[in-house]
């Protein structure tokens, strides 16, 4: 059965009719066209579907859209500046060649946004722990960690 929910997505208030059985990943991709949100394992293990709900990272594949009623959701699309500029974390990923196939990238960027938001600075080992909910099958993580160190590392 369809239910009406209100949520703020990337800063815009949206009223949507959604199925109670829908995952947030499905809603964001299929109803709102936000295809940065990837369907990967669909079991909360790979992190490709990571988005922010009220500023906290969640695996949107195992999060029911009904629970986002009244909440703020953010995806990579919401990071773009008014003239299409990239955010510092996105730029760091490009500078450090932290992207290969790109499937895991939007999710990791959202985890980076959450940890940048804390205002803290992290060691490389701490950053490893903080992205442990993401799988990347291309890069071996080293360039991703280089990019993260650039924006949230202790020497950044």
């Amino acid at each position, binding site marked *: 059965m369809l239910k009406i929910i209100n949520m703020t997505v990337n800063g815009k208030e949206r009223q949507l009719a959604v199925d109670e059985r829908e995952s947030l990943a499905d809603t964001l991709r299929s109803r709102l066209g936000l295809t940065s949100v990837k369907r990967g394992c669909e079991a909360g293990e790979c992190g490709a579907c990571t988005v922010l709900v009220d500023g*906290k990272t969640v695996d949107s594949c*195992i999060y029911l859209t*009904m629970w986002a009623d009244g909440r703020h959701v953010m995806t990579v699309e919401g990071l773009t500046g008014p003239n299409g500029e990239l955010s510092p974390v996105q730029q760091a990923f490009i500078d450090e060649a932290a992207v290969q196939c790109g499937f895991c990238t939007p999710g990791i960027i959202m*985890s980076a946004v959450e940890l940048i938001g804390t205002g803290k600075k992290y060691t490389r080992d701490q950053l490893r722990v903080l*992205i442990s909910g993401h799988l990347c099958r291309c890069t071996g993580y080293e360039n991703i960690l280089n990019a993260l160190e650039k924006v949230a590392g202790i020497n950044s």
Partner: protein
Amino acid sequence: MYDIEYFYQASDVQDAVRALQEKEGAQIISGGTDVLIKVREGKMAGASLVSIHGLKELTGIRMEEDGTIVIGPGSSFSAVHEDPIVREHLQMLSEAVNQVGSPQIRNMGTIGGNVCNGVTSADSASSLWAYNAVLELTGPDGVRRVPIREFYTGPGKTVRVRCEVLTAIRISRENYEGYFGKYIKYGKRNAMEIATLGCACLVRLSQDKTKLEDIRIAYGVAAPTPMRCLQAESSLAGREVLPSLADEIVPLVLEEIHPRDSWRASKAFRIQIAGEMIRRAFRAAAGRAGARGFDQEGSVQTC
């Protein structure tokens, strides 16, 4: 789309209890990190779900006037980990919940779900056992409080009946004041892992830090449910705290645990690491409590 036959978002606990009574067979969903996986896998396909996700009265952590710490079962693992009351008084629990899954899972999964699942591998369960937590269940007939030692009845089974909601996890002052502890999780990876074995050790020393006034040893995955080694505990109470005591504990706990073979690890392997884990957990706990001859961190390496 999830294969869910019936879904109801409760507005509060009473509403949830009423909905559970009305819909036969309906199960509670909270953080969803276990239930939705089971629905996807087919184990709970076609499920009827009553959601208690985000209920305000189930979140938050507070201390009552008599010092009892009350943890809202709807608190996420990260909320429990970061809470200042938990950090100050229940350090072992704060560290244990930070070893669940991944950062995202810890933002979603709840400590109440971890307990009510009834699984032996739950990272919070052995710590809560060591702290003698009391679980408050609210159902159609009112509220009852169950000590955690009476809560688990078998693998995935607890005394909670279907229409009851876990509404508080309570830890009284005498069960945390003066106690120092360490939880060690053994898994093949550091993240996204279900414990092969979990071991929690909590100690309280005499004023002069030479005697073990009380010790609590709890395991996950060492039996069909989380468990305590009560006989070992009572035979160790009152002993002098010496580094050699770490080795004496090992044969005592091995008398009491009953791990089994599973695809994750063999029984023999679990028995071997159970001994090493209590040795390390005890050293770390005694070190944190300020016993002489022990490192502050008990020279514990992360397993």
